[in-house]
């Protein structure tokens, strides 16, 4: 029994990182109707910024975390302004390819600056492993769960209670109508990218604390998994991304533990296919009739 609980907590730990990343995918999709494939690499950038500020500049942890989050948020806005905004009227395929190109650009830049060798990084979260009976939960996992929970609550409140949040919802409903109502669409899109990238930075920080190793391709695998999580939960839906991420982590962990560690990915994607067959818009996605 203890082991089932432990596996569940393991799954929640990875799942909550997926969820944080998935939020960025889903928010950007909801507002800009594009899949930002460079999103996974923001995690990697966040990890390296944290490494530089903590190890090379020896800044205190809180300052380093703040710089990392700000850097990624500004990077997100910059990428949107430079690469995606000029293409807002272009076919969606062009934007998709640009996003993939952006992803490669970020990875290659990291390769040039830091080279390909993984860097061992000492976790900045120094919380001891907690033992309850036979169950041991690592401190980093606990902090990850807590931070994710706080981020999700804050984000939900922001979207539902603030003016900027309603502007975001309005833009995602109908861009043209929102503009007519006096909402600054450009500013809202920038804000969405900033929030998404800041969440990715948080995910990046948690990720390196969890795994203590940084390399240029670090964002690729969690990025893809989080994208799957976003689709599973219904892309465009914020609570969907949260549920999708956590669910994906738990399914992964449980199938690794009790079915077969070799079939994990097959099972995860099998679940995705099943969900999409029954509910093509994802678990919490809206079934919208396409306007012509």
């Amino acid at each position, binding site marked *: 029994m203890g082991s089932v609980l*432990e596996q569940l907590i393991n799954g929640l730990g990875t799942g909550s990182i997926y969820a944080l990343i998935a939020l960025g995918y889903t928010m950007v999709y909801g507002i800009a109707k594009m899949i930002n494939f460079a999103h996974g690499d923001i995690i990697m950038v966040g990890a390296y910024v944290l490494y530089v500020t903590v190890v090379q500049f020896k800044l205190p942890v809180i300052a380093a975390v703040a710089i990392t989050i700000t850097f990624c948020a500004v990077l997100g806005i910059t990428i949107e302004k430079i690469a995606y905004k000029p293409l807002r009227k272009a076919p969606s395929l062009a934007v998709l390819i640009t996003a993939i190109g952006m992803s490669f650009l970020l990875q290659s830049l990291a390769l040039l600056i830091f080279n390909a060798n993984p860097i061992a990084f000492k976790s900045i979260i120094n919380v001891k492993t907690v033992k309850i009976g036979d169950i041991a939960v690592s401190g980093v996992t606990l902090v990850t769960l807590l931070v994710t929970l706080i981020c999700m609550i804050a984000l939900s409140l922001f979207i539902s209670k603030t003016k900027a949040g309603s502007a975001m919802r309005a833009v995602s409903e109908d861009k043209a109508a929102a503009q007519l109502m006096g909402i600054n669409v450009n500013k809202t899109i920038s804000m969405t990218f900033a929030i998404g990238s800041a969440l990715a930075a948080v995910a990046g920080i948690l990720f390196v604390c969890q795994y203590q190793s940084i390399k240029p391709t670090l964002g690729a695998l969690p990025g893809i998994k989080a994208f799957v999580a976003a689709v599973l939960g219904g892309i465009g839906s914020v609570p969907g991304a949260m549920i999708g991420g956590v669910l994906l982590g738990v399914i992964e962990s449980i199938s690794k533990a009790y079915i077969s560690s070799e079939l994990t990915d097959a099972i995860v994607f099998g679940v995705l296919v099943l969900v999409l067959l029954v509910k093509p818009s994802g678990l919490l996605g809206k079934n919208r009739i396409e306007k012509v």
Partner: protein
Amino acid sequence: MKKSLKKILSLGLISALTVSLLAGCGQKSGSDSTEFIIGGLGPLSGEAASYGISVKQGAEIAINEINAAGGVKVGDQTLTLKLNFKDDEASGETALSAYNTLMDEGAQALLGTVTSGAGLAIGEKIAEDGILQVTPSGSAAGLTEWPNAFRLCFTDPLQGQTMARYAVEDLGLKKIAVIFNNADEYSTGVKAAFVEEVAALGGEIVAEESFEKGAVDFKTQLTKIKGTDAEIIFAPVYYGDAAFITTQAAELGMSLPYLGSDGWDGVLAQVVDPAVLEGAVFLSPFLATDENPAVQAFVKAYDEAYKAVPDQFAADGYDTVYVMKAALEKAGSTDSEALIAAMTEIQVEGLTGSVTFTAEGEPNKGAKFVQITNGEYTLVK
């Protein structure tokens, strides 16, 4: 008028093409020069970069030594050796294009590949070209299936069997958990032989967990192992994975000892806290703290050149160059067929032990066990 212009133009193009073809030939057959070019292939970037860089640097030390001592006497002429080492990123596709570039640049024998996967992908192509290939560290069973291919290190199956005997007979541990990379020939090869040998010796594999390439989270597999009555964990993986596994196991509060494979060499540099590796034992043909004078001379030269302590891969690279030198001297020619024939007749006293080669391309040499104690590599026996 127009037609004749076309004719002249095409004639000109054809002659230009012929000249460039001939020029290509001229470059390729550098046999009359006094240089023997050894092509090298291994990962200089990416996850397995540390192996490739070590092999390259070890080989360079050997080549500088040989050239400084006057070169290699081959028949009636004396040749200097030259190493042309290319990055294959431990990937089959990159290895193939890097190999083609090497051949275009006149490589006469191949030192490589450093990793098994890349070698399996290009073995057929090298066999077609027929040049002597010696892999310093590629240990997959199939790597030497071609007549021109030899290896300096242990094979995966031999390593698995040796570790199984060490666990069951020397340590007396019968309940063993295994964690391996199921997308990697090296990892699955060692694991298969290990599992078979443990069963033959009366031991029991209580958990057999796999992970995919690029995985960073091993907690689920480790939690599963934790739930069994395993007495030791065998992890035939590369150093990067070994660092993740040992660190995460410590986070989960596990304190089981580890057995590793030779891919563990270099793991100390990858962990934040070396205490998680305390007591781990892995197979390695070379240890820098060995008191053998040849080893100490090599360690000194390596430190002067690269400001680093050589690992087994550096020693493998160094020995491979000396194996090629011995083959050149024995054959008395730089002809590939003569070199390949000479391989089974030579005996080389290398840093990784005294080695001879079978016609199948396998080495005959002994094994050393290395244990990690107080954050250092130490010899077990």
